[in-house]
């Protein structure tokens, strides 16, 4: 489903974020990108979402080279990806329901259809009692679960989560991870960047990175 072929990324002035990284991820895998801050985990996620382009090498998503995506094709490509960012990126002037409905409305769904599916996604994240609340009225864990609800509402084939537990306490972090594992079990490919060692054991695979270079990978026997 996803293939990195000798991918390097340099930012001016001469900062190397990734160097000669190659791996492939199959459909339904739960993969962790592990490593310290600045290792290149976020850069890999941004490349899969076509937010960044490689300086050299190839990034293929479903056989499509992201370097070949033009401005017109990019939005449609992103609609198949559920993106969960470290800062949750919820719109603060909209309620949780409105935030979760947003990807559906962007995709052209009717308001009634968006309402039904958003409610279902929010319920799945146990946030039904917060549906009309604004993001700042929610705890960090609730905000992140709302972000997951928004990421899954479009039923994406791929979920990219960038440090989803970074600012959460243990309990909330566990809930978020359990949700992501459940999606993976349902056949959704999940790629999660994290430096939280506790959760790595739940992965089907861990790709280690350090200063933009690929280290050894660990693969679950299952």
């Amino acid at each position: 489903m996803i293939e990195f072929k000798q991918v390097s990324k340099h930012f001016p002035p001469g900062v190397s974020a990734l160097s000669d990284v190659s791996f492939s991820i199959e459909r339904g895998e739960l993969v962790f990108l592990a490593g310290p801050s600045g290792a290149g985990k976020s850069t890999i996620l941004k490349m899969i979402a076509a937010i960044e382009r490689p300086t050299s090498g190839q990034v293929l998503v479903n056989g499509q080279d992201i370097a070949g995506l033009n401005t017109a094709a990019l939005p449609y490509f992103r609609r198949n990806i559920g993106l969960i960012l470290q800062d949750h990126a919820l719109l603060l002037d909209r309620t949780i329901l409105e935030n979760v409905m947003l990807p559906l409305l962007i995709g052209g769904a009717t308001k009634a259809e968006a309402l039904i599916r958003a409610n279902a996604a929010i319920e799945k994240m146990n946030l039904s009692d917060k549906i009309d609340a604004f993001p700042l009225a929610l705890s960090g864990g609730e905000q992140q679960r709302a972000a997951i609800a928004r990421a899954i509402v479009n039923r994406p084939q791929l979920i990219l989560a960038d440090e989803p537990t970074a600012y959460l306490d243990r309990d909330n972090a566990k809930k978020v991870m359990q949700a992501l594992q459940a999606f993976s079990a349902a056949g959704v490919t999940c790629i999660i960047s994290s430096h939280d060692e506790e959760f790595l054991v739940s992965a089907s695979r861990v790709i280690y990175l350090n200063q933009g270079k690929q280290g050894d990978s660990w693969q679950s026997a299952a």
Partner: protein
Amino acid sequence: MKIWIRQHASASLSAMKQIISAPGNFLFNVLVVAVALSLPITGLTLIENIRPVSDQLSIAPELSLFLKTDLTRTDAIALADTIKKMLKTAGTPAKLVFVPRETALTGLQNNSGLGDVLATLGQNPLPDAYVLSFEQHFELTTQQSSPVKIEALAAQLQKLPEVDHVQIDSNWIKRLAALMHLAQFMLVGLAIILSIVVVTVIFNATRLQVLSHRAEIRVIRLLGATNQYIRRPYYYAGALLGATAGLTALALVAAVLQPLNQAILEFASLYGSNFQLAPLNLTFSVYLLISAAILGLFGAFLSVRHQISQLS
């Protein structure tokens, strides 16, 4: 198609929400644009009110013959027969009135307010004159010139050795027509300049809106929003700003006409007229509103294209 309509409806709703979220900014921008629009609208209102008056202006054309100052009174009076013959030959019947230099001076002293100045001259500087009032009335539109016959007669009269100068007294109508043309030309120039001002104001207002929604644009772009989806609410907001400002400008001009009409009525009543300035008619007003909305849309279009490309 349904999706397209739905997204346009959603964009217009989003534009309304943007406006409601910052009503102060919107009202301020409406006022600035309305003031800019009200100037050409005022000019247009004035021209549209004056045009029917000038178009229907009908006068009995007159020729004034100023005789040479060294001509004796007897020779001056005797010239009447020559003039009558020439009128008959030209086929332009007219009433001929002799105006002695003394009468002309008295009239000038009484009507010009220069009585004291004229008294210091010692002798009468004015010549004897004839005034020819033609029986034929004709319309003097802004395009029409004096009849050729009268102009030809004036040229013949000018050749008489006793005549110093011939003046066609309908020339002021031509000047009025030229003035109207000039006013229209200046109005077009003013409209173009102020349209640029309007586009610039809306460009800047939209730029500030886009900048204040940078974070939101970043997020919805990551969620798969197309550029069109992102731009549409700003287009609607720009068009709405333009149309609201146009409506406000029309209301401002109509409000200004009220006190102005009182002053005009007082002045016109001295000439037995009840002339008053009327606001622009409905068709014109609708055209102006559409034009204002298009200007708003254009300003927003330029701004959003520029800003969004910078954000990406």
